């Protein structure tokens, strides 16, 4: 879809500037170092609107002044930005904007970093002639519980409205009324709710929209900005922390087109007060909460682990690449145990992982922008990787990409989708198999409509969720192969385009999933995804081994199995059965309370380390704020623990930890801290990127199939993943059609679960976000609600076997009959308690009392 744009030459203030055809004059001028003041122009918001008139310039041959933000360059254009006529216009525009502006800079939060102040200073008349009363609004008032609006200060630039209409597409913000009574607001003055709405405070060029969380906290000269990466979800958006007195006061977006496009979600923006929460673990502790020194804690942990005689396993979650690498060094090198994993549930085997890691199969985030078709498979980006949701919306809106969605649960993207398919929970691999068959051989089945929209697409990006599970991931590789992924584009028999190109982009369960896998935190692969002599247990096998006592010690790094893993009661049993637990945790969680030795972890505002984006981009998390209490860096604690266990890693600082990692992972070899820089670097694009191990059986299989010209069989389970057999809890029934799951009148519904964006510590430990804390809601289809005689708001008890949780009914049009959904990780009513790693059916009974 991308066409090579012609270069043109324009003369701006006497300078020759080479610009790209179609580019706006303002951007061309910037290339020639000519500054034109703007208020409303922001390319990220889509087409320019020319609302503020600040950017007027004189173009030779056009009698009237033109807005440079919305005038595309033409070859040979001669432009003047400093003539008397332009100056007069600029003075007039500023004067007009200030006619109704209160100029209460001293009490305004924007003061000191305000474009209106800067432009008035630089391009304004310097004197006011206004003696009349200015317009008045009630101020400041709540636009949402997080954003204050001061309508007197608004200069009606449309930026916030365009964000709401064209970027987050929630269409809530409007300009209401007319003339000088125009103001920004929502219908009926309802609060503006959107998981991205904090971005409007970055966009507003005046102090009309300000954050309650930053209200009057500091001035630009009181603070330091520190660039880092948000690791609250796998999007790994680039952020900039505003730090005053060693504490984070605000989080701003730091634009990185390859990652976040300059937006961040409200989780990342407002989820910083938990860094200083009372629940933080601020020093090493022993069981019962006794504080001990680091030296003492390391000695105890080393002694306890060494005494377990190799019967030790480790599970890693929220950790940097270096921390993951050091943990695998401890487990494999010092404790001589092969058992470690970094995935909350059983994942695909190493062959599938290697296959997925092939650079030619990898879609980058920017690939979404110019994709012809985007297939969202088994994930709701809004809940699991919010910034991808905006990216997909942008591709649809701006470049006309088509969207196909195949998930268990309705997603936020459904509205823009051309084809939607729902499969029953646990039926992902069956569904993908059917889709592969429909794609490869035109088979008529449940997936045919979806296959139709993949037809004739030049560039397909499949955004898939790790929660598809092991066998579905293997099926996914079959699908990618059927879409003719790699190598020469030969085209398939049933009319698929010869230029078909497919890329996969994963939405993993934990923020740094890819980095941890590549650092070797996998049961069947070492650092650099290298094959191992002995394979260990994965997460679920570790749990079972703890229960049957074949494992004895457990190291948990940044995970909270009692909340985040399926089957919480069995995890409790396993952790209780372990005779020695070493836990690294940021917060005092239920899991942390069971640790024999508990070490604190840093947050992403304090940590120094690298993380790997799902598309392979290594980014650096840099320390911005001071570490509270007596927290020491994670690499230091782990390196010392390793040393105490007699395994010298040679790691004495963050750079040496990074060097050890890049030395151990062949395809990270040419990555240095300097080429990571501020934007990160994809390892696939470095010199050493080619040294990713061969995908082995799987791709050999694929290659031979392509050579023989045979299309992929419909069943598609060609990838022989060693772990797959034990790791596939799904596909117990062979019906993907949800309607067929439960016959009308059946007492049970199939349970699907999802990760809610706002469940967990984020809303529990950040006081400003408490109002978003979700309660457990049982989502039902209208048919089932009617059959069970349940109405929205009814309190119910959902039970599976002897386990049950309480919830409130909501009825959702787009949920197929026979299925119901609950959210994971909700304190007190966690859907993970009902799961058992298999497809689960639940009974629903109405409770008489309303839940407390």
């Amino acid at each position: 879809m991308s066409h090579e744009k012609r270069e043109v030459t324009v003369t701006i203030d006497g300078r020759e500037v080479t610009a790209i055809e179609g580019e706006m004059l303002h951007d061309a001028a910037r290339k020639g170092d000519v500054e034109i003041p703007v208020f409303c122009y922001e390319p990220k918001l889509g087409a320019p609107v020319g609302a503020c008139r600040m950017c007027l310039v004189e173009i030779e041959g056009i009698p009237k002044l033109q807005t440079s933000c919305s005038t595309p360059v033409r070859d040979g254009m001669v432009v003047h930005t400093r003539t008397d006529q332009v100056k007069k216009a600029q003075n007039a525009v500023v004067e007009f904007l200030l006619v109704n502006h209160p100029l209460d800079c001293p009490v305004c939060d924007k003061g000191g970093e305000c474009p209106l102040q800067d432009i008035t200073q630089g391009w304004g008349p310097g004197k006011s002639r206004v003696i009349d009363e200015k317009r008045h609004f009630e101020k400041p008032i709540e636009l949402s519980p997080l954003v204050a609006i001061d309508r007197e200060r608004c200069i009606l630039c449309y930026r916030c409205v365009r964000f709401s209409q064209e970027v987050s597409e929630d269409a809530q913000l409007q300009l209401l009324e007319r003339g000088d009574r125009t103001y920004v607001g929502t219908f009926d003055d309802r609060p503006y709710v959107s998981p991205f709405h904090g971005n409007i405070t970055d966009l507003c060029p005046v102090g009309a929209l300000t954050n309650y969380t930053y209200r009057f906290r500091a001035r630009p000269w009181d603070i330091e900005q520190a660039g880092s990466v948000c690791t609250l979800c796998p999007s790994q958006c680039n952020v900039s922390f505003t730090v005053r007195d060693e504490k984070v006061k605000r989080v701003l977006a730091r634009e990185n087109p390859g990652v976040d496009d300059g937006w961040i979600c409200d989780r990342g923006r407002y989820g910083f007060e938990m860094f200083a929460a009372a629940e933080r673990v601020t020093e090493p502790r022993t069981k019962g909460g006794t504080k001990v020194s680091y030296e003492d804690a390391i000695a105890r942990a080393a002694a306890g682990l060494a005494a377990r005689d190799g019967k030790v396993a480790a599970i890693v979650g929220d950790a940097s690449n270096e921390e993951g690498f050091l943990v695998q060094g401890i487990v494999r090198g010092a404790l001589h145990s092969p058992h470690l994993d970094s995935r909350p549930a059983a994942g695909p085997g190493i062959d599938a992982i290697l296959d997925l890691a092939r650079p030619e199969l990898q879609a980058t985030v920017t690939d979404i922008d110019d994709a012809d078709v985007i297939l969202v498979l088994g994930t709701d980006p809004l809940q699991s990787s919010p910034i991808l949701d905006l990216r997909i919306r942008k591709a649809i809106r701006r470049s006309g990409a088509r969207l196909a969605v195949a998930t268990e649960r309705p997603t936020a993207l459904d509205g823009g989708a051309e084809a939607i398919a729902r499969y029953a929970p646990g039926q992902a691999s069956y569904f993908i198999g059917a889709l592969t068959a429909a794609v490869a051989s035109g088979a008529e089945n449940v997936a045919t409509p979806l296959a139709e929209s993949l037809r004739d697409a030049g560039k397909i990006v499949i955004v898939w969720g790790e929660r598809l599970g092991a066998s579905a991931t293997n099926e996914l590789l079959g699908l990618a192969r059927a879409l003719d992924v790699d190598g020469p584009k030969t085209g398939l028999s049933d009319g698929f385009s010869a230029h078909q190109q497919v890329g996969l982009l994963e939405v993993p369960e934990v923020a740094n999933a890819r980095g941890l896998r590549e650092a070797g935190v996998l049961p069947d692969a070492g650092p650099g995804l290298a094959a191992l002599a002995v394979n260990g247990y994965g997460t679920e096998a570790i749990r079972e081994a703890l229960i049957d006592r074949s494992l004895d010690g457990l190291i948990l790094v940044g995970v909270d199995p009692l909340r985040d893993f399926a089957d919480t009661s069995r995890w409790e049993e396993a952790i209780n059965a372990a005779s020695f637990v070493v836990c690294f945790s940021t917060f005092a969680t239920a899991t942390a309370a069971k640790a024999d030795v508990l070490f604190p972890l840093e947050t992403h505002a304090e940590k120094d380390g690298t993380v790997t984006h799902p598309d392979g981009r290594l980014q650096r998390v840099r320390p911005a704020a001071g570490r509270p209490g007596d927290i020491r860096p994670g690499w230091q604690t782990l390196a010392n623990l390793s040393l105490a266990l007699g395994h010298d890693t040679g790691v004495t600082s963050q750079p040496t930890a990074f060097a050890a990692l890049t030395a151990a992972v062949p395809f990270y070899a040419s990555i240095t801290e300097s080429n990571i820089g501020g934007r990160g670097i994809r390892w696939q694009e470095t010199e050493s990127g080619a040294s990713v191990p061969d995908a082995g059986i799987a791709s050999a299989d694929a290659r031979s199939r392509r050579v023989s010209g045979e299309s992929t069989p419909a069943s598609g389970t060609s990838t022989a993943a060693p772990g797959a057999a034990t790791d596939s809890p799904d596909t117990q029934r062979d019906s993907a059609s949800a309607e067929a799951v439960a016959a009308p009148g059946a007492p049970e519904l199939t349970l699907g679960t999802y990760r809610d964006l706002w469940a967990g510590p984020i809303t529990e430990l950040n006081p400003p976000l408490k109002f978003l804390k979700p309660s457990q809601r049982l989502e039902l289809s209208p048919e089932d609600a009617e059959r069970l005689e349940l109405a929205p708001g009814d309190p119910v008890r959902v039970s599976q076997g002897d386990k049950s949780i309480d919830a409130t009914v909501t009825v959702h049009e787009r949920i197929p009959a026979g299925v119901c959904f609950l959210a994971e990780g909700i304190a007190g009513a966690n859907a993970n308690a009902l799961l058992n790693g298999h497809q689960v059916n639940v009974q629903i009974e109405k409770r008489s009392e309303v839940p407390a």
Partner: protein
Amino acid sequence: MSEQSFYRQAGSYLDSIDVVEVQRGPEPGGLGGAYRAFGETLRGLKTTMSRLIEGPLTIQYPEEKTPVYPRFRGRHKLHRFEDTGLEKCVGCSLCAAACPADCIRVVAAENIPGERVSSGERYAAVYEINLSRCIFCGYCEIACPFDAITMGHDYEMADYDRTDLIFTKEMLLAEPIERTPLKSEGEDVKGAL
């Protein structure tokens, strides 16, 4: 080239500049030379003599204080509105931005209706000046958009502990215990600080 002709040649843009004519004494030699030798010396001696007959000038500090000029820049004061009693300072931090010694620290907070501290939306929850670093330049006073801070007349700030020189908002709002005498208009330069 004389200065005058240089300026004349220097182009029209210098027209607006005031050219100050320098008055010079007579050339050396003759009567003029004698005047320069004795006249000027006598003029200087006149001042010396007049001080001689004035007697000793010792101010009995600290019992007696040197009066200062009204625009003397001593220890800062924060002000309140006389009618409402609200603090004039809104915690905008502009003084801190202007301060070349970086010795002002402002932490602002939001006014709660009913418990107003200042008249605006915000007020200074913390306002500190580290007087051991202050150079009494008065930039903070110039920067303040609300005349909330002014340079006072108090110059007695010696202390035994550096930390005691960090003046808090309460200290700056309070009236100094002893007022420094002010010079009245037209008063002589004598003994002025």
